[in-house]
């Protein structure tokens, strides 16, 4: 089985002495849709930066489709497309020029570069903007420009560092569709995101990184199975003065007066409603509190912080 990405014992100490990565191990299978999650400053961009040679590693091994970056860097790079976290194109250059120039860096002749640029700019809805200087694009368009630029040489592995930051809901969904389509056609995708909903919607496998260490590396399904408690928000017909005491359930009122109830796995919702019925509380609507993965995530990072004695540095 080939791996699209193999990382072994990767460490990084920045020149100021900061240890951003403390021995990362990560495998991403060919064809996977993989999410790298973690709070701000966890080391996500550092890890991806090393993979695409924007950051020099301190130690460890990285290979892309079997091409080790120490011995066959060009081979690794040819298979790789990168969408970085920050905008990094020349603001004064035209959209089409940016994408075709990038193809030229991969040795693709101008004619083919133009065709490929056209294909991806059209797919990403930027073709009408092809003659605009990049600085005149909106934030969401700039993100899509970077995706088109990353794909122009048709890499087998696409890495996206927070591709949907600052992108509105509608566009985000169309970007998800686009990425899923790319993945179906065989492109392996790795992304980082702070919208866990995004990881839950698209990704098959997940790694969680915190303080430069992988604290979890598993499939999304296994991760969700671990979720032992789910929190629901109930809106009642009559506003409640105080939280009722429901037998077998933890509950409280949230700031907007909705009733927040924790339901353990295996308890089932029927007994909750029976209990509510008994107390004469009429429920008008019900929703899950946070996205499920998010709850799990916050809990894991908190645990990790406690383990490491670093409480307070958790993601909000």
């Amino acid at each position, binding site marked *: 089985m080939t791996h699209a990405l193999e990382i072994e014992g990767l460490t990084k100490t920045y020149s100021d002495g900061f240890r951003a990565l403390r021995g990362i191990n990560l495998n991403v299978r060919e064809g996977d849709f993989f999410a790298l999650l973690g709070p701000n400053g966890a080391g996500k961009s550092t890890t991806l930066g090393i993979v695409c040679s*924007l950051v020099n590693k301190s130690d460890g091994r990285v290979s892309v489709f079997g091409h080790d970056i120490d011995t066959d860097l060009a081979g690794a790079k040819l298979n790789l497309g990168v969408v970085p976290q920050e905008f990094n194109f020349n603001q004064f250059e035209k959209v089409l020029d940016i994408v075709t*120039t990038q193809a030229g860096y991969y040795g693709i002749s101008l004619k083919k570069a133009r065709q490929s640029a056209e294909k991806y700019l059209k797919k990403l809805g930027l073709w009408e903007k092809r003659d605009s200087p990049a600085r005149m694009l909106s934030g969401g368009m700039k993100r899509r420009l970077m995706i088109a630029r990353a794909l122009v040489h048709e890499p087998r592995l696409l890495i996206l560092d927070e591709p949907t930051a600052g992108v509105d809901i509608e566009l985000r969904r169309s970007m998800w569709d686009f990425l899923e389509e790319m993945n179906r056609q065989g492109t392996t995708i790795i992304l980082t995101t702070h919208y866990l909903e995004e990881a839950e919607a698209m990704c098959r496998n997940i790694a969680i990184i915190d303080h430069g260490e992988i604290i979890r590396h598993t499939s999304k399904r296994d991760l969700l199975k671990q979720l032992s408690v789910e929190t629901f928000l109930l809106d009642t017909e009559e506003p409640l003065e105080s939280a009722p005491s429901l037998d077998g359930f933890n509950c409280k009122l949230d700031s907007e007066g909705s009733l927040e109830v924790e339901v353990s796995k295996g308890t089932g919702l029927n007994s909750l409603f029976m209990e509510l019925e008994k107390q004469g509380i009429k429920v008008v609507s019900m929703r899950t509190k946070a996205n499920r993965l998010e709850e799990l995530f916050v809990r894991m990072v908190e645990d990790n912080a406690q383990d490491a004695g670093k409480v307070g540095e958790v993601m909000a």
Partner: protein
Amino acid sequence: MNLQGLWVAFTTIIVREVRRFTRIWPQTLLPPAVTMTLYFIIFGNLIGSRIGEMGGYDYMQFIVPGLIMMSVITNSYSNVVSSFFSMKFQRSIEELLVSPVPNWIILAGYVAGGMARGLSIGLIVTVVSLAFTHLSIHNLPMVVITVFLTSALFSLGGFINAMLATKFDDISIVPTFVLTPLTYLGGVFYSIQLLPDFWQGVSMANPILYMVNGFRYGILGVSDVNPFVSLGMILVFITILTAISLRMLARGKGIRH
């Protein structure tokens, strides 16, 4: 990458560089044409007519090769230093760093881009000078080789400057405090034979003197130094700066964390 791929990457960098300096032509192509016209009018015509001969030629004819060379030097240098530094600053250098283009092609592409600008300006200034004087060329191969190599050398210099620069100030320090004085003292406006012995000796330590004189030899056939020594010196400097540039790229200082 195969040979053809390398060639495509190389020309891609050049095309992008040319597109950049032609896009901002009022900053790049126009100013040298204006300043050189002023030099020709003031030094060449007004003052020059009182100076009489220098090195056996009209003063105007004497300074033309120097002024062409001066424009080539400053423009080759500033093209690479500003283009590469702003790539670093905007981080669009990452477009190159993630791609499989080898370092030597990156360097060659930027140097060729700097040469494209330096030589275009050299041509513009030459054309402008024809409005003031006539030029007959003494030794064409010498002219071409000297101007190409000098342009390459200062493009390399601009590249190293850009690699070392961390803020915009850093890219004007060398041109202002090193390049301009060396050029003015490098025999653009006078023959060093006018100087006392001691200052002649000091001038011989100025590399730009050799380039200006090599070029002047090619055009007029007169020189303060042996033109072949000039060529040799330029080649030695090119070799040294190329080695330094490649080493800096390999270490990635200032471009990779």
